[in-house]
């Protein structure tokens, strides 16, 4: 069996992994949600078409999303150091995680909002709704379940990315897996971390799906 020291290390790993995943998802949404809404509004057939704003956001999203996360992680080290004060550990990992997640979230949000039935928006306009009212009373309400499904997928992806940050000293379960599995060939600990990651992923995915299904009134 694993000795007590290893168990404590693994528990701390779980804590750090959850911390990185959840905080970066949260901050990612603080940035990505408004970005996604603006992308939806300014697209050519949106509520307030604006080519320049759309092009700029579109470009930013594409650029960041086309850089593989591991490269982004290394590329951002000076920036991370400037923001957090150090480039390793869980808190430092949140910086590249957020920067990677925000454009992804913006795209997921944009796609969810684009799916809202044009007729419903047309009706709201006809009834005299302002654009702000359409965003908060129609678009976000109608896209609610799709947004929740998107958030679930995003959280799962960030869990994986947080583990990937272990290769450059990111902390959490990924860090443990790399240190013990790759550098020390201590396969037992690596296997435990993998199992723990799988369990955490399952919990996130199932919880997300359950919450989404609970709020879904589109089907009977």
């Amino acid at each position, binding site marked *: 069996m694993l000795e007590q020291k290893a168990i404590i290390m693994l528990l701390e790993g779980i804590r750090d992994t959850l911390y990185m995943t959840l905080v970066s998802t949260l901050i990612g949404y603080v940035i990505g949600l408004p970005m996604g809404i603006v992308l939806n509004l300014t697209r050519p057939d949106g509520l307030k078409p604006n080519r320049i704003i759309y092009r700029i956001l579109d470009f930013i999203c594409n650029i960041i999303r086309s850089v593989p996360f591991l490269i982004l992680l290394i590329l951002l080290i000076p920036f991370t150091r400037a923001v957090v004060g150090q480039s390793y550990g869980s808190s430092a990992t949140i910086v590249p995680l957020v920067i990677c997640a925000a454009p992804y979230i913006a795209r997921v949000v944009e796609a969810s909002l684009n799916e809202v039935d044009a*007729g419903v928006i*047309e*009706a709201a306009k*006809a*009834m005299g709704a302002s654009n702000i*009212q359409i965003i908060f*009373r129609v678009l976000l309400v109608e896209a609610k379940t799709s947004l929740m499904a998107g958030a679930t997928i995003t959280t799962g992806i960030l869990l994986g990315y947080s583990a990937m940050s272990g290769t450059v000293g990111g902390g959490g379960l990924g860090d443990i897996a790399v240190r013990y599995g790759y550098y020390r060939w201590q396969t037992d600990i690596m296997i435990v971390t993998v199992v723990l990651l799988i369990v955490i992923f399952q919990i996130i995915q199932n919880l997300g799906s359950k919450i989404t299904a609970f709020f879904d009134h589109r089907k009977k």
Partner: protein
Amino acid sequence: MNELITIRDMCKIYNPGENEVRALDHVSLTINRREFVAIIGQSGSGKSTLMNMLGCLDVPTSGTYILDGKDVSTLTDDEQSDIRNKEIGFVFQGFNLIANLTALENVELPLIYRGVGARERRELAERALEIVGLGNRSSHRPAEMSGGQQQRVAIARAIAQAPPIILADEPTGNLDSGSTKEIMGILKRLHEEGRTVILITHDNEIAASAKRIIRIRDGQIVEDRMNENV
């Protein structure tokens, strides 16, 4: 003054220039308070454009539109949106209800846009649902109702704020014959209770329930007659 809608010499031209489309070609039209009018035409006849004009959803290229004594042909977007909210109740072919909201919440929407307080909103919405015979369905969501019931919710939404005009664009286009009868019955009743109902359709049979039938073709009114059979 009995005239509710006066359109004078209205033109709407899309793509001005060589390939211009005259969707409305010098149309003049007067609709009085408490009329029940059907505007009938094939697709491409200009009836949708006329509906957009009547509904203050678009501005004409030329001509004037006096709605309830106000010239609305030159208003800004915001002003038009205000007029729509107060003066016109819209009913659409595709119902256009919000799937995640209950019937009552859907009916409350135009009142929210207008800034009516929560309690009054609820009362008005409940009354509107009772008028269309769905008082007992207020907590149901659109997916739990038939097409006919959904359209009745949409009508309740249109009348909740008591606008003088109800503008219905192919309201029975997505419905079976039973529901069609039901919806036409409700529109007739709303007219009898004193509302002005404007019905846009391509279907002669549907138009036959109106008291006045206006036929439009190639952007012009080609027929405007009282319906003797009603």
